[in-house]
């Protein structure tokens, strides 16, 4: 008998890029910053990244195998989570930190909430907050065996010192593995913009709001050096371009994205200026993520032809 023709409901074509392509684009965009971190801090930081990624994948696989869910190992989302977490860790942390962090990120933050697309907060950010609170000592030790300087530029700033903004821009400074080079992170961010993986709204509004907040309340006015150091320092760049733009935990509506980014800018400013630690991006993102359902609810647009009308 002749083969039957396939029947399906329209549309009969699909865009070529799916979840995996988007995730791999994010990984690709993170590569310059990751590579620079390894170059700057040495082979041990590569071990940290590999451990973080490895345990993220392992946790994803094991959990799904145990509960009998179809494996999502190949959609690339666990890879992104692991990589982002690793890049947000200090370069010389003991390896059990990335292990624990990845397990927490994938198991507690992502899978227990239902897996990809269901998590309420960004897994990598939540895991970092968890590690920061639980292991403050290990997570704040930025000096290594080779005697590299201990304090991060933001800590220096907080204590009233001045930072070398040129070094902070290129990345010859101290900090987490993937956050030090603003240049490399910007290159990745621009790649994502060009490939239309992300849109400009969240990073630009976030950075803009934060800058304005610093000018208004930072106590140094529009001091360009101070402002540049605040923008380049800490996890702001990696946060604005790679974490705040996380699909699952950012609003899908256009207006919602603006509102979300405004919140992020203000929260980051508050945490940085008056918080206990020098950074604040992780806490800001986790907090703002929790507001997303609410933001979406109030910003869902009126459909075409219903603008300004009440009745549905």
């Amino acid at each position: 008998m002749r083969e039957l023709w396939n029947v399906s409901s329209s549309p009969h074509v699909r865009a070529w890029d799916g979840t995996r392509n988007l995730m791999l684009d994010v990984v690709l965009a993170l590569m310059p910053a990751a590579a620079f971190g390894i170059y700057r801090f040495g082979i041990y930081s590569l071990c940290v990244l590999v451990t973080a990624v490895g345990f993220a994948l392992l946790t994803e696989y094991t959990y799904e195998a145990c509960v009998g869910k179809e494996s999502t190992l190949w959609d690339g989302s666990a890879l992104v989570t692991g990589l982002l977490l690793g890049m947000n860790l200090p370069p010389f942390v003991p390896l059990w930190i990335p292990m624990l962090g990845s397990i927490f990120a994938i198991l507690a933050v992502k899978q227990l909430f239902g897996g990809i697309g269901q998590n309420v907060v960004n897994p990598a950010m939540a895991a970092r907050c968890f590690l920061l609170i639980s292991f403050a000592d290990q997570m704040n030790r930025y000096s290594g065996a080779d005697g590299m300087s201990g304090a991060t530029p933001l800590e220096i700033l907080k204590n009233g010192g001045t930072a070398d903004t040129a070094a902070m821009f290129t990345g010859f400074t101290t900090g987490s593995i993937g956050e030090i080079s603003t240049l490399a992170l910007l290159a990745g961010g621009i790649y994502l913009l060009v490939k239309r993986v992300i849109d400009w709204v969240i990073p630009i509004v976030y950075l803009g709001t934060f800058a304005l907040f610093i000018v208004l309340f930072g106590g140094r006015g529009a001091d360009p050096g101070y402002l540049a150091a605040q923008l380049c320092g800490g996890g702001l760049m990696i946060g604005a371009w790679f974490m705040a733009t996380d699909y699952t935990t950012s609003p899908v509506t256009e207006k919602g994205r603006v509102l979300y980014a405004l919140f992020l800018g203000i929260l980051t400013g508050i945490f940085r200026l008056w918080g206990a630690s020098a950074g604040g991006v992780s806490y800001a993102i986790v907090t703002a993520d929790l507001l997303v359902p609410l933001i979406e609810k109030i910003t869902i647009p009126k459909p075409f032809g219903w603008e300004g009308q009440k009745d549905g």
Partner: protein
Amino acid sequence: MGYGSFRGGVHPFRGKGITKEKAISEYLPQGELVYPLSQHIGAPAKAAVAVGDEVLAGQILGEADGFISAGVISSVSGHVRSIERRMLADGVISDSVIVENDREYRPAPGIGKLRDPKEMTKEEIRTAIKNAGIVGLGGAGFPTHVKLTPGDDGAIDYVIVNAVECEPYLTGNYRLMLEDPEGILKGLQVILRLFEKAKGVIAIEDDKPEAVRRMKAAAEEHRVQKASIEVCALKTKYPQGAERNLIFSITGRKLNSKKLPKDAGCIVCNAATVHAVGQAVCEGQPLMSRVITVTGDGIANPGNFLVRVGTSCRELIEAAGGFTCEPKKVIAGGPMMGMALTVPDVPVTKTSSALLVFQKDPVAQVKKGSCIRCGRCVKVCPCRLAPLKMWQACKHYNYELFQKLYGMECYECGSCTYVCSARLPLTQSFKQARMMISGIRAKAGKEAGETG
């Protein structure tokens, strides 16, 4: 005025290159012809012939039954073999008149009588269109004489000729514009006679500069005759040709699903429909044939064909050289909104725009994932809906929530499914929900009518 575009939309592979340069060639049917009595929106036509009757080309086989209905015209001469139920491309089974073709194409009396629309009253023009059995040839199949009777003729200030053809692979309208721009303008002139205050706008996507040029040149000649006709090149994207979006692109006026184009002072007709109106009113030719694009990688000689309504799609495939290999998927219409066929034994109807034959079915290989909330569906929705939220509602059969999310505004263009990162069947689930809700509403309305 409008912006020449709207918010949202997608850019699927166009595929028009295959048949863009293929001139329209006429195909005369060999076998039996099938005339479904329901190939339009509204009440099915009533059979006006009996089994064994002799019929002539242009003769009425089915009479319009009610206000929103359309007649069915024989496209060949011969005799009625039977009246039976047949399946159409969209899977609907309709009473159909089956005509045995004698291949002589003897015209019915009065066919081909030339008329000057300038000497006809509005009533005569509308009757001529109605008698010609013309419906929206773009795919919707709404009876054209009803569309052209909006109530207040003076309230219409735009007559829009929809020559956008935003569905990939389709080139029928494009060829019509290149080969008979005069025919389209003739039809437009007829329609403009009905609406004295209206301006004619011919809407074309800007990736068809040759069509824009030809239509402009033709319109220029008519301008000498003091007709107000403009050719509008719109941004190329899908679904630019969707009525509500098209009206916005051209006039800047917004309509929701509860309104009709006439509420925005517009009448929108497909270019092929306008062409048919010109033929019917000026040349006394009822709707007997239409242009169809037969294309895809599974067809040997893709092309644009002028086909008699009622011809079997199986014949049409053979006319285009047959299959190159056993196809995986055959679609009646475009790839975004067309219907997949199981068998080729369905007739060409008034609303058939294309027959696509593919060696592969890309959709069959697609693996469904979970929504990652990337928001691409929200970005592309031409109705500015939130498909991902409607999907959640559909998944739980929560039709109340679906309606609250304005799900009934969706016109099933397929853009959200096209871009979905997780490859979810969004449009498909919306179709189901909309059908269910329409059914519930109709039932409730009926019950209310019975008790009240």
